[in-house]
């Protein structure tokens, strides 16, 4: 995919449109991270297509100086799938939120993942409907009090990572709005991965769901309540880098290095490329306070992509078939002459 690379900076990807998210919205930082990631990639600017659905995050394409499509609610995965299949040379990015991807667009979301179409899905998860002013979303925690759940929800939330792996997802990563450096790295990796990549970005809605992720992301406690996974490295976390994850029977367990004879060698080493989803499923499902919440690239497994196979199939059939144009087709099969 590498081409005669023009050297870009983040500025080249900024459109002339005024960014209209609320001051303090986490979306600003995510926009910055993507605009910083793209110059690191091998595509010329005209090859990018940013495609979104509806919601605050879905205004994103207007702020990118690339090809962009602001779709309708929930349908971005389908639109992006069509765009990528029609022209596999494009680098297609879907921008979506927790409501857009997992409520109204749930069907398209899981099927895009199942097909493994080479699109990069950026899922902004603020656990609330922001654009309609504060109703609970499919990721709102059980009991969340919102405008449509004044007495608390009685719904169990989706965990995006669990849904992605359940839909046979091959790439899942998690970041949060405040960590532009980590986000940038993940976006680059997501783009380089062939197949559907889903990046969940925990995002803060300052107006309708402020501090929803604060329990894990407050600077005070962040190191103890999160773990950043890196492929090939031990799963160690904590302010003092002394906590780690081990397998205890069929469950993950937190241990402290130096206690009960535990050494660094006992700690699990992260293998994002393991195709068996068992451990990845446990990692994406880790919830505070029982576990630290996992960040970084949790799963990254190679598999054939839909768009490549579509092209291959066409090329194979075209080489074999006697039908080269519509005239050939019209005259194929049973015909007769009237004289």
């Amino acid at each position, binding site marked *: 995919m590498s081409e005669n690379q023009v050297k870009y900076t983040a500025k080249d990807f900024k459109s002339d449109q005024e960014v209209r998210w609320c001051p303090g919205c986490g979306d600003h930082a995510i926009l910055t991270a993507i605009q910083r990631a793209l110059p690191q990639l091998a595509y010329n600017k005209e090859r990018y297509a940013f495609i979104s659905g509806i919601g605050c995050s879905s205004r994103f394409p207007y702020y990118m100086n690339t090809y962009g499509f602001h779709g*309708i609610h929930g349908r971005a995965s389908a639109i992006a799938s069509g765009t990528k299949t029609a022209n596999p040379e494009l680098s297609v990015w879907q921008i979506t939120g927790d409501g857009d991807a997992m409520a109204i667009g749930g069907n*398209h979301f899981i099927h895009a993942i199942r097909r493994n179409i080479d699109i990069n899905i950026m899922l902004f998860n603020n656990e609330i409907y922001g654009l309609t002013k504060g109703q609970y979303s499919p990721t709102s925690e059980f009991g969340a009090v919102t405008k449509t759940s004044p007495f608390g929800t009685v719904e169990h939330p989706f965990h995006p990572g669990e849904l992605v792996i359940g839909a046979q997802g091959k790439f899942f990563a998690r970041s949060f709005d405040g960590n532009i450096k980590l986000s940038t790295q993940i976006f680059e990796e997501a783009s380089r991965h062939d197949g559907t990549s889903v990046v969940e970005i925990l995002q803060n809605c300052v107006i309708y769901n402020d501090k929803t992720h604060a329990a894990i992301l407050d600077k005070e406690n962040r190191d103890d309540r999160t773990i950043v996974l890196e492929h090939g490295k031990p799963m160690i976390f904590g302010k003092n880098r002394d906590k780690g994850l081990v397998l205890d029977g069929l469950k993950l367990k937190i241990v402290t290095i130096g206690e009960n004879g535990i050494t660094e060698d006992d700690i699990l080493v992260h293998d994002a490329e393991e195709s068996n989803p068992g451990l990845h499923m446990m990692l994406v499902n880790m919830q505070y306070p029982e576990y630290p919440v996992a960040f970084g690239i949790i799963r990254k497994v190679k598999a054939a992509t839909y768009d490549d196979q579509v092209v291959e199939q066409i090329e194979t059939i075209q080489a074999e078939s006697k039908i080269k144009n*519509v005239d050939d087709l019209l005259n194929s*099969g049973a015909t007769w002459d009237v004289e």
Partner: protein
Amino acid sequence: MHIKHILNALCAFTFWKIFFYADSISTNKKTMNKKANVVQLEEVTIRFSGDSGDGMQLTGTLFSNASALFGNDLSTFPDYPAEIRAPQGTVAGVSGFQVKFGHKVVNTPGDYCDVLVAMNPAALRANAKWIKKGGSVIYDADSFTEKNIAKAGYTTLDPVTELGIQEYNIIPAPITSLTKEAVKGMGMDNKSILRSKNMFALGVVCYVFNRPLSYTEEYLKEKFKKKPAVIEANKKVLSAGFNYADTIEALTPTYEVAPAEITKGKYRNMNGNTATAWGLLAAAEKAKLPLFIGSYPITPATEILQELSKRKDLGVKSFQAEDEIAGICTAIGASFAGNFAVTTTSGPGLALKSEALGLAVITELPLVIVNVQRGGPSTGLPTKTEQSDLMQALYGRNGESPIPVIAASSPSDCFDYAFKAGKLAVEHMTPVILLTDGFLANGSEPWRIPSMSEYPEIKAPIAKEGTENWMPYARDEEKLARTWAFPGTPGLEHRVGGLEKDKLKGNVSHDPMNHQEMTEIRDAKVSRIADFIPELDIVGEENSDILIVGWGGTKGHLLTAVNELREEGKNVSLAHFNYINPLPKNVEEVLKGHKRIVVCELNLGQFANYLTMHFPNFKFEQYNKVQGLPFTVMELKDHFTKLLEEK
């Protein structure tokens, strides 16, 4: 004005005009040598009926293809239940296939049949009403057991008398037992033997109508290439049926319908769904764009998706989506990327696509939406035909959301209208809805194969790299179409979407006057298509006693009725519409000067209401039918004759 008088050109329907020939015509040595007495007919209608698992669709298709190869003009219509295998032996499970073939031009599959083939008592009961008075019935006598007769809902043990057809030419043939006998010792299991009963029936009918068996034999060879035993068994059963008919005297004399005098050329049999698929391929080729189809299977439109899925050799990207919405949304995404994009569906699916249709309208991307109409509302009558989605196609969206709507009117002209839908979509940068229906989709007729050189180029208004000051919503003055910039083109990066656009730059705009202007422009863009479509033709006089008005799939029946009435000296004319939105420019002129105007359609008057809205100074009477069935020529003629008698 441009009026064609087609006087008696496409004529008539002559019920059993019989000419006795002393000698036979040399078409099939195998049959002809033996026969002394062959009756020459102008046209014949045969209806094959049986359980939905009896293979009647195949039998009908094979007979039709043999007739087409023989040189007859013909028209077919399958009539099958929604269930794949409804309870065996019940009326609900009866599947039928009707074919009319003629020595002259055939425009409909016939109202009533000359010959009914009934594989069981239920098939006879379901179809007795479709037999012409005094027609022939060939039924499988072995299946008329007490149990089966009861299952079919008869109250006596004598179905023929109960149905009041005892005076008809009734031929009880022991089809099941003779089929068993024919393959005795060939090692066939009972199930396979019963499945080949349809070949016996086909053999009988081929004998009676002097059709060679060679076509069917070739078909069997191809179909069961890897199962020589099955080929042999089926051929044996086919011959057994043929020989049985030769032996019994009930079926002499045999009949022949001489080849039709039709335009010279190379022909093939064509059904509506295949024609639609191929017309779309033709449009893609002429537009020099890859074809992308995003669709979800739905009766009776599925075959278009299937047919296009086969055409990887022509570069088709077929995307079987997870639902109807994804079908159209993937197509919109593909259109954004620069493919010729289509989505195919039937009524309920069009309802699901409504929101996305609006997206295609506001983003002004080319897209063809094919709606193969079926009986509604809701799931309605999936396998039956109707024209009741017209209002949905015209208006079924939020906001001011104009979309061109065109309708095909015969199985084979689905090719042309699919092509035209593609041409309008691409050249005018708009979604276009093509309406066909279950009758056209499944019906078939011989089709003179055109050369693609007869079709015009389709010029996509593609924005070129290096265009100075390119703006996504700048338009050409003639069509008001914007230009189409494909992602991947350097320098033309832009954003489109469902929010209202600035009239030039395409950025989001909430400006009140901009919205008014954009709404009017989108409307005018569609209206201007009237400058690019043909005028409306009239069959008959400009000053008739009744102007019959129709649209879409009813053309064959309306034209046949009008031609026959005109032959009888009645002053009736026909104006049949293929372009619904916008309407042709000369409609008002065509409507003027007639004593009465009657709009005939398979709904409760949707087109009549549409015409009333556009031409409030005319009085549009209605003739409507919503039975899931096409019009019959007979009921149309009766109705018009009655109207003509009113003073």
